[in-house]
């Protein structure tokens, strides 16, 4: 009985001491936890780190990913993530298949105007995961919208459109950008290539676009030969120059569209002025010697 009493007393004493001591430690730890700021991320890349994670690449990448989310969350109010590109670079070095990390970077880095970092990350994603069309799609957008790099955007949109799941918008964007940059012939060729592997529901749109760009191409080729005009409408009804390249283009377009563009006398059919150009009149840029729709 006496022993039980002593032991109970000891247990109570130890319990109370613990309660007291742990209670003293908590506020200090809490202060540290609440005030701790994210430190600089020290690693430049994860290639060397990958060698020492002993086969736990995914796990290591996941841990870093959680740290990245905490880092972003901790800096959400200031919307400043100076170390984010480094974090994502290391994560995708350790686990190159971490698709979400690329998406995350593609979305957040442009917010911070770190366009080049976003491009580098998305290029890496497109290289490591070619089946993920979104990387090329986002890349095309960033290059076109933020970096004003039409060439890069065209390449990215075209790479995206090679994937069957890629939205048709990418192909349209690539063709439009090509035409806009004066490369009407490339745009036309690109559309012809797309027609080869397009889905059934995409074909009507691509045909319409091919027709539009094709006519533009023919007219542009013609205007390169003819003296400059104030309006493209003036070309209608004129005789097509006996240029082999122009004749070949017209033949190709006629075959594709299944309708005649040139009458028996070798003149461009006047109907062309009504449709589709009538809805969206084209103008002749005298300085640049190109034809473009007025809306551009």
């Amino acid at each position, binding site marked *: 009985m006496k022993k039980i009493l002593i032991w109970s007393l*000891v247990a109570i004493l*130890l319990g109370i*001491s*613990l*309660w007291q*001591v*742990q*209670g*003293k*430690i*908590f506020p*200090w*730890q*809490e202060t*540290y*936890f609440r005030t*701790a700021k994210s*430190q*600089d991320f*020290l*690693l*430049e890349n994860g290639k*060397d*780190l990958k060698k*020492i994670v002993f086969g736990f690449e995914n796990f290591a990448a996941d841990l870093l990913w959680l740290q990245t989310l905490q880092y972003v969350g901790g800096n959400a109010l200031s919307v400043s993530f100076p170390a984010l590109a480094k974090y994502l670079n290391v994560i995708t070095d350790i686990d190159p298949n971490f698709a979400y990390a690329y998406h995350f970077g593609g979305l957040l880095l442009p917010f911070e105007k770190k366009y080049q970092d976003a491009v580098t990350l998305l290029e890496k994603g497109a290289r490591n995961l070619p089946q993920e069309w979104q990387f090329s799609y986002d890349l095309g957008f960033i290059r076109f919208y933020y970096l004003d790099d039409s060439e890069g955007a065209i390449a990215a949109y075209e790479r995206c459109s090679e994937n069957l799941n890629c939205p048709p918008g990418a192909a349209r964007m690539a063709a439009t950008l090509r035409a806009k940059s004066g490369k009407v012939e490339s745009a036309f060729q690109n559309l012809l290539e797309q027609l080869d592997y397009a889905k059934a529901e995409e074909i009507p749109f691509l045909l319409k676009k091919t027709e539009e760009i094709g006519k533009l191409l023919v007219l542009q080729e013609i205007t390169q030969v003819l003296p400059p005009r104030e309006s493209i409408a003036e070309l209608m009804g004129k005789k097509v120059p006996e240029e082999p390249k122009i004749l070949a283009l017209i033949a190709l377009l006629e075959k594709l569209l299944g309708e005649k563009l040139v009458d028996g006398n070798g003149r461009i059919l006047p109907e062309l002025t009504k449709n589709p150009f009538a809805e969206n009149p084209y103008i002749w840029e005298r300085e640049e010697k190109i034809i473009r729709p007025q809306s551009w």
Partner: protein
Amino acid sequence: MNTLFAVAKNTFREAIRDRILLVILFFAALFLLAAPLAGKLSPGQGVRLVTDFGLAMLHIFGLFLTVFLGSRLVFHEIERKTIFLLLAKPLPRSHIIWGKFLGLSAVLLCTTALCSAVFFLLVTPTWSLVLIIGFIYLSLLLLLSIVLFFGTWMSPLLSSVASILFFLAGNISFSLRLFGENMSVAGKYMTEFLYYFLPNFSSLNLKNFVLSGIPYTALNLIWIALMAIIFLIIFLLAASAIFTRKEFEQ
């Protein structure tokens, strides 16, 4: 008291003859000496990485040693029937547990000192680092008392697993309490209870505080050390109580 030290002395001798100690020490030295490689991963921050990596290795290999050696302490005596030689001697059973704890504490002190010596070949010694290593040693002692507690009534494998789980739980008890603040009343009380009655291993891990420049006072350190000592006493008392009532079959 003499009997206590006799058991401790024997435990110490037995442990330093154990091959597992040499194997773990060899790898500890190897990994510590590899710490400069970690420094090369981050140009400009090499010293910091070497320090962090070295301290982590020192801690991790200390944990390995504690769990591997501690979990077999009592079990080996029973398995080899040498426990009967001890029980036949005029010494209280609790002295066996406390003696073994003291013996292995001495082994851990030697191995920690040895690893620290290797570590200080790579990093300039400072009082902060010595303090951190001191608290690593204290956390190893606390873990040893837990391993001994489980080792008195479990097989080595089970007691190792249970101790490691206890160690992990002790490391997150603080975060759990913070997490509990956003839970229901029951959840809040549950996480608070866990915080108070699980050893707060995260507070013993001073490397996270000191190296990050978090201010601390001597009083903070005293409370942390006191917490470790109280838990250590509780686990050793519990281990002694179980061991005293344990029946051994010939």
